[in-house]
């Protein structure tokens, strides 16, 4: 026999000569309730998805209306699948309604959608640290209503998509992909959705996974509860079963979500979240695309720190690996930074965005001679120091010390040891033999014509002029940078066909050391101060504090002379690409070429300063870390609410335990009060046994009144009564006779005596 069904035509014989009756397949499910259940699932997922997206971007909308509309539409779109006819008509009506609403309320929907897009764009510009990007122009002023309208409209479209995936076949993977698509952008921009919507979405997806996993999800055209599949006859829906399964799944999901939310709230997570390398990479790509369009991809090269090429411009952001590049062994002598020079830029090439390498051979030669002579003459603020530089993983190059005799390229896994003569603030001027020739001066004052307008503008803004004291001029530049141009490792790439320095000064106005040094050099040259661009490694006293002491090294081998830090010993400082740096050298009449630091300190917040557990402990205390760098930047989690919640949970648990115990006790009391005298004695005897089972292990092995009482009599003071008690108990427990009140009291009295443990007795009865 073949089953006449539009969906399938299968043999429904389960054995030759035994066929499943048509009536069996005509047993219908309660389609309305089933669709209602699926409608709730559609609502959870749709509202969860769009709610997540909207709350993540902090776009204001009326959540009550949004939820009501999405809930109603989810039910409507589910219920129109009641039968084929309602499905066909319902789909058309729903579609017409969508088109009508879309056309008639287009300004609201547009405004709401644009508002949401503007919020996303705003978030993107914050995330990518980009100048404000132009947004869409809203048509209406009532933004919140418009956003609510747009959210409802999106929800109306969303329920169709979700419903299509869920109603006939439980395409969980589709739902997962849909959800990822909707929340991907906010998630990428590190915008966290509201917890409630996230929970709704996760719960909905979990339900659909469970539904899918059990394989009971198919909708049949004839509402049949049972269908014949290839290998089995299976039920399609069972409302009670599905409801109960939903409840138990929902409880699991809720408990996990609440636990995570309580133990590890989103605010805590924000503090410890770091970006993955792969995301950093795609960030660069997105950022290049946003700032430069497709052409930006042709003016781009990789950079992961360790600058020493003089090549600028194409670097979108600096990614540091924090691996040790160099290990420097020396004796710290003051608080000022120590520089190891690898590249000196002489001529700047506009639009090529690079510094051409200057002749490095005789740089600072005379300064070295002068300061060495001063040391040898015994001048007060002079010293002779030795430094050992080991190249661990830095590229081959010179790591030139200032005021050193000679330099040498250091290969990987090799080292160099050289002497140098530190210059202190207090060191006297050594102006002899360091004057620049006119030729040299001209060389170090070169400014490309393409940069002049921007540099002039910058100089005028700074108020520095020709003839100004070089130190004062450099300080003016440094302070300006500090106040107006933030430091960032992710300034974005210089657009193609734009000059690096001009773009930095005129447009981007943010950058890292390379930007500050390059612009600073040209600005100083503009006012007639010879200056040059330098790259290499730099470390300061903070790095020294993190270093380890070399205990077996003799300080005198490394250092002689004046030391501003007299207590310091020989230390090993590890330098990573985080120490790679660009700075400038400036010519002064008193000291010749001196290194100058123009780069302002990083404005990035160190988010890893406190461990998760420290923050976790904070949750349960009132102490708010006033030193936390995040105060004022990140909204603090309301600890009071959390504590109240936690206390409520504990209270509920205790109340539940108390209720359970009370119930058991009251139940026992009621049973006892209603029992006859025999039963009362038996109940009391059970209590007596229960009390003593914990103390006397062997008691469990005694199976009847006689054995139990005899065993326990060995620990009792009135053991002589045991036979009488056994007789009373057997009478109460096994006979139809009613025990007398005297017998009852005697037995109770016997059981009331405390038993004492006697060493060895237990073993004897084992």
């Amino acid at each position, binding site marked *: 026999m073949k089953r006449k069904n539009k969906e399938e035509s299968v043999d429904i014989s*389960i054995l030759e000569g035994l066929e499943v009756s048509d009536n069996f397949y005509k047993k219908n499910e309660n389609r309305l309730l089933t669709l209602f259940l699926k409608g709730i699932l559609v609502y959870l997922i749709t509202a969860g998805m769009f709610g997540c997206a909207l709350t993540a971007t902090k776009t204001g909308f009326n959540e009550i209306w949004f939820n009501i509309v999405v809930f109603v539409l989810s039910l409507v779109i589910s219920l129109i699948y009641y039968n084929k006819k309602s499905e066909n008509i319902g789909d058309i009506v729903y579609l017409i309604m969508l088109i009508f609403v879309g056309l008639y309320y287009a300004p609201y929907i547009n405004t709401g959608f644009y508002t949401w897009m503007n919020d996303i764009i705003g978030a993107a510009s914050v995330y990518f640290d980009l100048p404000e990007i132009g947004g869409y122009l809203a048509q209406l002023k009532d933004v919140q209503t418009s956003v609510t309208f747009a959210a409802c409209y999106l929800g109306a479209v969303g329920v169709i998509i979700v419903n299509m995936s869920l109603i006939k076949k439980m395409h969980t993977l589709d739902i997962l992909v849909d959800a990822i698509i909707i929340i991907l952008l906010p998630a990428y921009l590190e915008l966290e959705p509201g917890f409630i919507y996230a929970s709704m979405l996760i719960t909905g997806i979990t339900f659909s996974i469970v539904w899918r996993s*059990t394989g*009971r999800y198919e909708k049949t055209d004839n509402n049949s509860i049972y269908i014949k599949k290839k*290998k089995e006859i299976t039920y399609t829906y*069972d409302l009670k079963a599905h409801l109960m399964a939903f409840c138990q799944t929902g409880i699991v999901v809720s408990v996990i*979500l609440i636990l995570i939310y309580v133990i590890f709230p989103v605010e805590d*997570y924000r503090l410890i979240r770091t970006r*993955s390398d792969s995301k950093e990479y795609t960030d660069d790509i997105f950022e290049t695309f946003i700032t430069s369009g497709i052409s930006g991809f042709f003016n781009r090269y990789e950079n992961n720190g360790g600058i020493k090429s003089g090549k600028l411009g194409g670097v979108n952001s600096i990614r540091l690996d924090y691996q040790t590049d160099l290990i420097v062994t020396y004796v710290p002598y003051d608080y000022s930074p120590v520089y190891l020079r690898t590249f000196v830029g002489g001529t700047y090439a506009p639009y090529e965005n690079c510094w051409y390498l200057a002749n490095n051979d005789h740089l600072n030669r005379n300064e070295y001679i002068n300061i060495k002579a001063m040391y040898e003459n015994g001048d007060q603020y002079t010293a002779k120091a030795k430094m050992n530089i080991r190249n661990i993983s830095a590229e081959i190059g010179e790591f030139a010390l200032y005021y050193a005799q000679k330099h040498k390229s250091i290969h990987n896994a090799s080292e160099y040891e050289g002497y140098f003569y530190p210059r202190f603030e207090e060191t006297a001027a050594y102006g002899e033999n360091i004057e620049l020739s006119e030729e040299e001066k001209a060389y170090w004052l070169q400014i490309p014509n393409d940069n002049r307008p921007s540099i002039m503008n910058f100089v005028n803004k700074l108020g520095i002029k020709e003839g100004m004291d070089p130190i004062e001029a450099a300080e003016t530049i440094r302070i300006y940078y500090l106040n107006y141009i933030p430091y960032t490792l992710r300034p974005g790439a210089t657009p193609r066909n734009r000059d690096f320095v001009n773009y930095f000064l005129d447009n981007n106005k943010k950058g890292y050391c390379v930007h500050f040094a390059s612009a600073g050099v040209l600005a100083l040259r503009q006012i007639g101060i010879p200056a040059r661009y330098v790259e290499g490694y730099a470390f300061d006293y903070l790095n020294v504090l993190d270093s380890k002491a070399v205990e077996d090294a003799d300080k005198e081998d490394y250092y002689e002379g004046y030391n501003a830090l007299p207590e310091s010993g020989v230390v090993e400082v590890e330098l990573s690409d985080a120490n790679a740096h660009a700075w400038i050298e400036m010519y002064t009449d008193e000291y010749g070429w001196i290194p100058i630091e123009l780069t302002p300190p990083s404005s990035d917040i160190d988010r890893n300063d406190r461990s998760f557990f420290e923050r976790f402990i904070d949750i349960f205390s009132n102490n708010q870390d006033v030193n936390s760098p995040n105060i004022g930047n990140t909204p603090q989690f309301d600890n009071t609410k959390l504590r109240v919640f936690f206390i409520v949970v504990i209270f509920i648990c205790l109340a539940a335990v108390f209720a359970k115990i009370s119930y058991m006790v009251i139940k026992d009391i009621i049973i006892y009060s209603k029992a006859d005298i025999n039963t009362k004695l038996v109940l009391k005897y059970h209590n007596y046994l229960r009390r003593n089972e914990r103390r006397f292990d062997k008691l469990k092995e005694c199976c009847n009144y006689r054995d139990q009482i005899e065993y326990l009599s060995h620990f009792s003071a009135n053991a002589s009564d045991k036979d009488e008690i056994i007789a009373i108990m057997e009478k109460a427990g096994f006979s139809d006779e009613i025990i007398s009140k005297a017998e009852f009291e005697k037995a109770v009295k016997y059981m009331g005596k405390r038993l004492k443990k006697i060493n060895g007795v237990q073993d004897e009865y084992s």
Partner: protein
Amino acid sequence: MRSEVITKTSYYKWNIFRILGYIFVYGIFGILLFSYIRSYIQLLMLFVFFALPFASVLFLTRMHDHVKIEIFASDEKVRVGDDIGIGIIIKNTHILTALHCACVLKLSNNYYGYENEQVFSLPVIGKTTTKNPLLCKTTCLGEITITLSRYEISDLLGFVKYVNTSEDTRSILVLPVTDILDDDINAGLMEGMSDNEDETRKGNEYADTSNIREYVPGDRIKDIHWKLSAKRDILLVKERIHTSENQLIIWVDSSNSKKLCEQILTLTYNILLHSVSEGTLAKLMWMDYKDSSVSQYVIENVMDINKAFIALYGGKRGESINDIRSLLLNNNYNIKSLIRIGYKEGDVRAYLYEA
């Protein structure tokens, strides 16, 4: 209805492919995407979807001991073409629910040698006893044996199945439809009866008494040994041994195709019913190829017919036998004539066979 529980073993069966699939999707959507984006909602998802399988398996381990599954059959015997209600009763005393319980039914009809295994997928609802009838229609004769060979309760995610192989069996006897015999057959029957049988119909003794026992409800009145009962002051009945020579002998030749066999059995059944209604003693004989012997069953009432058919269905059909006489003689049966029911001259009929 017969029921028996033979063995009981239980074990867990892991769905490795599903687990690997889950891990794969978890890895792709969860860990890889999380390691890339590192959003809080992903973190929540990771935790939930990490804990969910454990919870799912834990639920199953907690509940399966509280589940009792057995099969039921609404009728012990039915007529061919009737609806029968076989089904599964699932009793779950635990609060947890499983959405998928595969009950594996082994169905067989020994007479025709039919066997099949049918899986019936049902939910196990918390704190509920559900009766799940599988409404069926019988289309051929025989004794249908339905055995719940095992049931497999899956956890919510389908990662593990709790398999229980306790067997529960029900049997349903499918009897032929009853029909009014036409005159020709009736006449044939008359022909096949021996003189002694005629005597029997008139109320004379037709068999030897083998035993006297106390009357039990259900015994025929005519079997009461009145004289002895009067002496002993309790009702006593005679148990008889029938002598084949004095009975209507019916030989069933069910060696043909299933369709013809069905007709032969139907005709046999109706003839037997007729003979019972007439008060005629009959003996049903057939060749059972299960042990290559001649089987026989004395029919005194309708219950005997059913018993005979149970025995007949329990046997095995074989080739048609032309020389029944030799067969009977070889088996020490001294039968002069019998009614043979079988396929003859293009039709199924009952005809006199002179042995």
